[in-house]
């Protein structure tokens, strides 16, 4: 059955159709939530909230709109809620970068995702990167994660956040500059 047909049935109150819709998108939603909140334990609770909200909001969904954008919007907002509540006092900016590590981020290697072969080195780099990102406000961090890890295009992001492409580019520009500033600071400290 096509997604649109399935969604239409859900809107009529068909629970079996909704269960199928959940099954089709649960993995993507889990992955997205995990990348944003980075807490394996809480992903299930957040995902359950997301799908419950989806169920009650489906009657307002217009079939000509993008279902994915609708679903991701709910998921991202739920993650923000969670992060706000958690207000984790981060181990932030304890990342002091060595020259080698800085060179890694500045090389094309990091972009092409060719990670250092050594597993422990790889974990170290990952932890450093995570610490740098955790210094950013949740909204900026999430935007970068959606863009660079979940690989949403500018156009898709505009549709998820219900805004223009240029507004998304401006937000990205700010988030990138912020991350760069955090990065420069931790490089200097070393």
């Amino acid at each position, binding site marked *: 059955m096509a997604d649109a047909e399935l969604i239409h049935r859900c809107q009529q109150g068909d629970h079996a159709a909704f269960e199928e819709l*959940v099954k089709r998108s649960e993995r993507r939603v*889990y992955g997205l939530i995990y*990348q944003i909140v980075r807490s394996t334990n809480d992903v*299930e609770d957040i995902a*359950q909230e997301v799908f419950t909200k989806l169920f009650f909001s489906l009657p307002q969904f217009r079939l000509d709109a993008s279902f994915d954008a609708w679903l991701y919007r709910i998921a991202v907002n739920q993650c923000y809620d969670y992060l706000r509540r958690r207000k984790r006092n981060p181990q932030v900016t304890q990342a002091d970068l060595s020259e080698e590590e800085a060179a890694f*981020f500045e090389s094309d290697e990091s972009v092409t995702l060719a990670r250092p072969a050594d597993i422990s080195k790889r974990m170290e780099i990952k932890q450093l990167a995570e610490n740098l990102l955790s210094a950013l406000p949740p909204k900026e961090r999430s935007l970068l*994660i959606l863009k*660079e890890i979940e690989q949403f295009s500018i156009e898709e992001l505009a549709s998820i956040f219900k805004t223009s492409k240029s507004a998304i580019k401006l937000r990205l520009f700010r*988030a990138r500059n912020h991350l760069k500033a955090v990065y420069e600071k931790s490089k200097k400290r070393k």
Partner: protein
Amino acid sequence: MEHRQLKGLIEEYCEGTLSPEVYPKVTQHLAQCHECKQHLRLIRLTQGITAASKGIAPPFPAPGFSRQVLQAVAQQRDNYLFWRPLRIVALRTIPAMAILALILGVVAYMQMTALLDAPNKSEMSQLESYLDLPTNWGQEDAVLSETISRDPDRVVKTLMGGQTNPSKSEGKVK
């Protein structure tokens, strides 16, 4: 195309969503524009950091997850249905409330300007006592302007020192 137009396309350039006509123009521009090159570097660096932070052990939904969601929906349904009429009413009344607030704002503004135009008596006497004005200062002004309009020549003469003793009705003019 020039810098102004091209600098906004660098994000799309990196994500590879530019049209085949525009792509080489951006490449060419990047080779010669320092500012755009810096922007490209910023994107690459932050791409690298973000990608490197990728969580590598995402949890997977348990087989019964969708069932669990349906149970949660069933639990929240009564609550949702109970509050739904109120929610609908609230949503419908938002525009009416906005219009009402606007009208009240306009009325308040008009009242305020009316008050400013015509200060009431008690406010005026307060002002006068504060400024220590003679109680007949308004009348003196009226007499002066009347004199000026009736006999400007005399006023000129008075001011020039030609006539120092104005006659009866203008007696109050200083």
